């Protein structure tokens, strides 16, 4: 490969190029088969690495040892319930920090204000869902189990697709509240990261993906076929974008 552009391939693949450079490389890809093939090979490698589940989580024994070794803090010896309360309090603090930061970033347009308010609520709902036992009401990797579970619980039927072949397995679903209405929350996983997708009907016309984020959390939202979608996660922005593209194309 001596097209002079191959140096940008990995930055493009990882979503780390600035918009101008990324657009340049994208148009280069149409002309350069060597780069297009190299990119396909990288995608294949990433798919294989993701499918192999190589992530080495900390064993329970290590977790216990670390807890025992850390000097006693007010929480270390507290009963489990108290620790959960503390974790919930910490999440609330984080959530309110995040809300505050988003609020600070408020632009002036009326739609933008509404969007930021929604972003704040979606982020809050994501953080709430990470509390123990809050993530799913129906835990299943089977889309044919998750979809009917919503029947009768909502005034609409969300489409439920498993994206396991793309490296984003479905974990389950639950009911949640965003913008004062009941919404469907679909839960997906990527490695150890959780992705929440909030879905509700919308009268807005179809719109392209829009994204934002705060405090290490990223959200992407779009509207399609009369439905509004918000995906939120602590995944790298490029990974969440890949997820959103696959979900919106499915």
């Amino acid at each position: 490969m001596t097209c002079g552009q191959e140096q940008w391939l990995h930055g493009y693949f990882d979503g780390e190029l600035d918009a101008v450079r990324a657009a340049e490389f994208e148009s280069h890809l149409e002309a350069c088969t060597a780069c297009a093939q190299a990119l396909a090979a990288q995608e294949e490698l990433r798919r294989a690495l993701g499918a192999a589940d190589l992530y080495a989580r900390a064993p329970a024994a290590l977790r216990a040892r670390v807890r025992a070794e850390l000097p006693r803090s007010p929480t270390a010896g507290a009963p489990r319930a108290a620790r959960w309360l503390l974790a919930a309090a910490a999440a609330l603090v984080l959530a309110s920090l995040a809300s505050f930061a988003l609020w600070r970033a408020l632009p002036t347009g009326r739609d933008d204000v509404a969007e930021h308010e929604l972003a704040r609520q979606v982020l809050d709902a994501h953080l709430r869902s990470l509390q123990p036992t809050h993530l799913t009401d129906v835990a299943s990797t089977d889309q044919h189990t998750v979809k009917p579970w919503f029947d009768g619980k909502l005034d609409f039927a969300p489409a439920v697709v498993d994206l396991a072949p793309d490296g984003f397995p479905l974990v389950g679903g639950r009911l949640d509240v965003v913008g004062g209405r009941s919404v469907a929350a679909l839960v997906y996983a990527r490695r150890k990261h959780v992705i929440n997708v909030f879905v509700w009907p919308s009268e807005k016309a179809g719109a392209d993906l829009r994204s934002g984020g705060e405090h290490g959390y990223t959200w992407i939202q779009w509207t399609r076929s009369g439905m509004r979608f918000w995906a939120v996660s602590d995944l790298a922005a490029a990974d969440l974008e890949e997820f959103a593209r696959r979900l919106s194309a499915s």
Partner: protein
Amino acid sequence: MADSEEQQRFEALVVPHLDAAHNLARWLVRRDAEAQDLAQEAMLRAYRFFGGFRGGDARAWLLKIVRNTCYTWLANARGAGQEEEFDEAQHVVAEETPESLAIAGAERERLARALEGLPPRSREVLVLRELEGCSYKEIAEITGVPIGTVMSSLSRARDRLQKALGAEVRKAGP
């Protein structure tokens, strides 16, 4: 770190990244027992130095300590002759599994072996990017290199991994 507010902050910000600490240690030292010891040591070290944490990305801050702890161990182990040439046979675990699982297991084994055979600097950028999902900025912070060189390190590491996997296929083939 005496005051309990700091302790709570540590437990809220740093301890949740124990999985990330263990994962990086496991792939850097390639041994299960030592990875647990080193992840624990790094966590305690982080606890002691938490006063020096100026806020920002707690995971990157912890992983930087994990990395230093592991490299120190690797250097000492090499000096003491403990870190012998990586012995493949020692790390291949043959398990009896149903056929479908066995195929997935074989593929996992093939990738794990290829990754473990790479030089540590290549291994760590791949683990951070592909398993941990770190951005270039985070990788730069953890590994202490300018952000501009992360892309070329990753490019080199991925080339190496692809070559290693190619070699695996040839070895396994007819």
